[in-house]
């Protein structure tokens, strides 16, 4: 067998194999697809028809409407749903015995977590591409320039991974995928509204919800900003309560929360599933 293996190719990367399997599971699950892609698209279309005729005076020159300012919230809503998706995926692995089955193979939890997160990352990229295609391609949403839009893309991916980290934390405590989905909904729906990501919310409470920071950075970069250098050096995030947090401060919060959720999620999940 060893000789055959060298002849036929090298051993595949286990994290990569796991991520491919996980991604196949995601894209073949019609219900999950509807939930993670169908809903954001539906909201985007509704918001477009409601807000695209309302002109607003933004800091950037040129004609802008309320939907241009609302679209970043749609992106954050879509990527934030990875919290549900990851919670369901990891809770399902726990419940259906696949995690235990993998524990009898020479795989290691490291490969499972890396593979799982890779799958979530690929999925969030797919999600953002579709949303960008819909928003910037079809609905003609305003953006500063292509470079800033690409940076916005990266911000959205980071927020998606952060949401997946939170999903892993919830999966650690959930006894079933249904419970995991319930936990995720209990967090995500209040968070997305209380953060002002979907509809503007005038309250300092918004600072306590991760979607707020992702949306403000995305908005600042793609709609409000001048250029990245100016944003990093002088701009403050256009917060509703006028506190002077620079863009890099917001970025730091976003990245710190991402690492924290992932680290806590993996640690708790490991602890709860090791017997």
């Amino acid at each position: 067998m060893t000789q055959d293996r060298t002849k036929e190719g090298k051993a595949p990367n286990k994290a990569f194999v796991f991520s491919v399997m996980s991604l196949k599971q995601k894209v073949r699950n019609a219900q999950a697809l509807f939930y993670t892609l169908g809903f954001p698209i539906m909201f985007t279309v509704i918001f477009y028809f409601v807000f695209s005729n309302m002109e607003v005076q933004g800091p950037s020159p040129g004609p802008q409407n309320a939907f241009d300012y609302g679209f970043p919230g749609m992106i954050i809503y879509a990527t934030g749903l990875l919290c549900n998706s990851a919670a369901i995926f990891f809770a399902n692995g726990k419940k259906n015995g696949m995690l235990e089955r993998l524990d009898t193979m020479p795989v290691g939890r490291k490969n499972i977590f890396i593979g799982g997160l890779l799958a979530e990352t690929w999925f969030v990229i797919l999600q953002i591409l579709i949303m960008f295609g819909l928003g910037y391609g079809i609905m003609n949403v305003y953006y500063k320039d292509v470079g800033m839009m690409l940076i916005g893309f990266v911000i959205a991916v980071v927020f998606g991974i952060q949401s997946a980290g939170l999903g892993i934390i919830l999966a650690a405590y959930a006894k079933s995928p249904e419970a995991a989905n319930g936990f995720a909904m209990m967090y995500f729906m209040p968070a997305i509204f209380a953060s002002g990501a979907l509809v503007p919310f005038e309250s300092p409470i918004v600072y306590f919800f991760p979607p707020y920071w992702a949306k403000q950075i995305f908005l600042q970069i793609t709609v409000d900003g001048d250029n990245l250098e100016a944003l990093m050096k002088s701009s403050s995030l256009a917060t509703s309560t006028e506190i002077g947090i620079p863009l890099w401060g917001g970025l730091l919060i976003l990245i710190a929360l991402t690492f924290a959720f992932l680290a806590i999620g993996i640690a708790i999940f490991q602890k709860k599933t090791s017997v």
Partner: protein
Amino acid sequence: MAQSIGAYNNVSVEPKEGVEINVRGLKKYFKEIKAVDGVDLQVKKGELFGLLGPNGAGKSTMIRMLTTVLTPDAGTAIIAGLDLRKQRVEIRKLLGVCPQEIVIVETLTAEENVTFVAQMHGIPTPLAKQAASRLLSQLNIAGRKDRAKNFSGGMKRRLNLAMALIHNPKIIFLDEPTAGLDPQARRLVWDFIRDLKNTGSTIILTTHDMVEADVLSDHIAIIDQGKIIAQGKPQELKEKFGTGNILEIQFLHQPDLDVVKEKLQTLPFITKVSDVGEQRVLVSFSGGLKNFVATLQQGIVEHINEVENISFRQNTLEDVFLHLTGRRLRE
């Protein structure tokens, strides 16, 4: 001299020539429940070892410990010369585990499921696909290109088994591999397991099906309430703990056992009379047809109107279990 490599909390176990799995003092408690309570056993290389016991006896917990999923509370084991507590990753490379529950990815096809497991064992993708196709043919699930969620229960269980065997493991754990299968599918799996024995792999089979344990196993350990209560070859166990031929009489009403016993025990070849509930009495006796007829005459002719059914059978592992515990396997 063998080196002592498996030692934990004053329990030590050593590799032995010809022994693939050597377990000493293995314990696992879940709060107050003693799931596995100090088990010692040895499985020889290339043998099919049956672990027989009722539901909740501790079979699956044993398997989960030996397959490195659960950490034992006490005791240890040497598996293929490797220490269960210290060399878990190396041990996993040798194992093929078929869990009791059907653990497959329902949104993948049969070939994708099996190929996935092969890749996780480090087999390159082209080889993995070839091996998957071959194995699925052997288990009569080749050619299904649709997703596993559309499969029947029997097909899912066979796929579950294929996922345990795709990498030609040296040691195979089969945890109730035929649970829920129809008789035809069960026969197919039995034949397949018999063929597996010929590959030289060591197989540990857990079951609560006495017939399955009897027909497949080279060696059997009977486990009850977390303890091994008997071990040996199936025939040895039946001879040692069985009580000869058995006449099972089912009465229409609960019989007066003392009266039945009194009559039957006048016959010298009667070894035991047991009330097993549900108006049934088991009469064990030695000898042949003559004694069988005599037992019938003495035991039930007078009560023939109260008899619903009579059956005769030879000793089974069920009788061994009954003898050892006073209970039936399925109780």
